[in-house]
């Protein structure tokens, strides 16, 4: 139920339907599929952050966006290094595809906003996005990852994303 809530929060109702239809769920993904989801999720947040830097004039929002780019790029760098070490390639999957489709819609929506309206939407999305991803990583991915090094990287990543969730909570509060 918790995983289902996460997916719904990420706007993945359609994906959930497909997941059921094809007997797929986040908990059934293999390590390489999970790695792909994480890489996609990282890059989506980096795209949101670049959008914020292009639109927002709020110093706090811009600082947050810069932190998202800095941290998610650092995580991606570690992930790619680990995959290279393991001589493995991440595998595309239903969840990665759904995340990307949903992100395109959100970017389209947010790119039409300006000023406070954008800042509040961006902040609210960052909070919801990190909450959903953290729930997914903590409850669906980490318990099912088989490779110890991949699991350790996800555990380290979760700490970062939880810090982002806390930071986003503060940002949302200040923008009210």
């Amino acid at each position, binding site marked *: 139920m918790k995983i289902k809530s996460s997916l719904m929060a990420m706007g993945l109702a359609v994906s959930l339907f497909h997941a059921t239809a094809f007997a797929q769920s986040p908990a059934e993904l293999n390590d390489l599929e999970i790695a792909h989801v994480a890489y996609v999720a990282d890059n989506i947040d980096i795209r949101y952050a670049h959008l914020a830097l292009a639109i927002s004039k709020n110093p706090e929002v811009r600082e947050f966006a*810069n932190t998202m780019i800095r941290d998610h790029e650092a995580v991606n760098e570690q992930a790619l290094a680990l995959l290279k070490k393991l001589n493995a390639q991440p595998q595309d999957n239903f969840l990665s595809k759904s995340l990307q489709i949903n992100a395109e819609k959100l970017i389209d929506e947010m790119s039409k906003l300006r000023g406070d309206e954008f800042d509040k939407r961006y902040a609210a999305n960052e909070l919801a996005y990190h909450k959903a991803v953290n729930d997914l990583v903590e409850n669906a991915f980490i318990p099912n990852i088989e490779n110890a090094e991949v699991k350790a990287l996800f555990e*380290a990543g979760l700490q970062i994303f939880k*810090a982002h969730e806390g930071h986003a909570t503060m940002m949302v509060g200040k923008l009210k």
Partner: protein
Amino acid sequence: MKLPTRREALVNTAAALSAAVFTPTSLSRAIASDGPSITHNVEIRKFKFVPDHLLAKPGDTIVWTNLDIAPHTATANDRSWDTGMLKKGQSKSVTVSEIESGGYFCRFHPHMKAELQIEQKDSL
């Protein structure tokens, strides 16, 4: 780049870092303490400064090392000193001068906070 003030620590570049935030002029203002100088290590791990409270005296060295994947900084609350960005595995050493006691934080993750307490010369 922020230039030093009388309240700042003396910062030496450590490890592979080249972006020192204090000028060589500051080095001449180092104060030799009466006791032996000590090196204090502060690890940045799991989004915390460990230890998060440090007692040091003029002449001591403080070394911050980032063990997290995410880059961090150690920055005085009043911005009077700053280690600059520390990526995973990087360190920055600071030689304590007449820096005042006070809090510091990570500029990138403002919830990360710690305290630095500097003993004054006459209390040594």
